[in-house]
């Protein structure tokens, strides 16, 4: 249920991942200024934990999970409509333990979360790094320090996801609704 189209579509929930306290505070403020709901964590493993995936699950999920697309998409739709789910993940690249790239790979391997847009941030402008992240599924790559103009680029990715959900709930096979330039 809950295609809640009447609901204010600006309340997106972003999960921010960064080991730097300063950068977490900054990204949180940037996102809140742009009317996003924010959860900020300091590591990739905490991010997976928050999503309800532990490190092992993310790798095994594909193997063990039945591809029951009906129940899968309904539950995530409900989550997103209720605003409990995460609509976008923005992560630092350089983190001890699990890097942002590692986190990206795990998210993309997860059938529950592979459709959540992931954005990577880095203080280092390394083209090969940027290309690899984008090729492996990151929607955007922001150079730090991240600014409001960067955060403004997030909304289209979130709107895309929102209309995809509405489509799959309607079980329509027609062309994907694009909400253009809000």
């Amino acid at each position, binding site marked *: 249920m809950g295609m809640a189209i009447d609901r204010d579509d600006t309340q997106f929930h972003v999960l921010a991942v960064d080991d*730097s*306290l*300063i*950068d977490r*505070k*900054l990204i949180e*403020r*940037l996102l809140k*200024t742009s009317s996003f709901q924010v959860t900020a964590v300091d590591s990739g493993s905490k991010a997976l934990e928050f999503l309800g995936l532990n490190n092992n699950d993310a790798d095994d999920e594909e193997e063990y999970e039945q591809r029951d697309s009906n129940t899968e998409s309904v539950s995530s739709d409900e989550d997103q409509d209720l605003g409990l789910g995460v609509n976008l993940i923005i992560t630092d690249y*350089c983190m001890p333990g699990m890097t942002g790239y590692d986190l990206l790979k795990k998210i993309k391997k997860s059938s529950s979360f592979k459709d959540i847009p992931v954005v990577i941030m880095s*203080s280092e402008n390394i083209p090969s790094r940027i290309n690899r992240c984008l090729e492996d599924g990151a929607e955007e790559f922001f150079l*730090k*320090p991240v*600014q*409001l103009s960067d955060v403004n680029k997030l909304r289209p990715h979130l709107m895309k996801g929102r209309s995809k959900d509405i489509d799959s709930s309607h079980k329509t096979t027609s062309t994907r609704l694009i909400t253009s330039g809000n």
Partner: protein
Amino acid sequence: MERNPMRRQLAIMRQSLFDQGHVDEQFVQLEELQDDANPNFVEEVVTLYYRDSARIILNIEQALERKPFDFRKLDAYMHQFKGSSSSIGAKKVKAESTLFREYCKSGNGEGCMRSFQQLKKEYATLRKKLGAYFQLARQAGPVETASRPK
């Protein structure tokens, strides 16, 4: 209460932070995130920065006491410090961090030590200037809008 002279003094102080190269455009970005609901955002972030920096500086000092230098570790610490300095717009400190990292990459221990001394000086100067600036800002009362340096 004489707000205007204070505000004028505050603007002058602020301008000199930019003119003297202590802070850059990122500092303006921080100011723009400050509003009625978050009136002390800049100072809060800077305070976190001091706390974080104290920890990193100590780590580097300790690492520089161990011979031979672990350049990889030193570089890793400085990468962190550079990152947070960049995030608050600390221009000179950031530049000195970059230099330090270059010395690390080329395994130049003497260069590292010299650069670190310089960095600590820049950092101390920044703290002093920002400290005076925030103190005056608190006395002068809330400022409505951020203005760009000319």
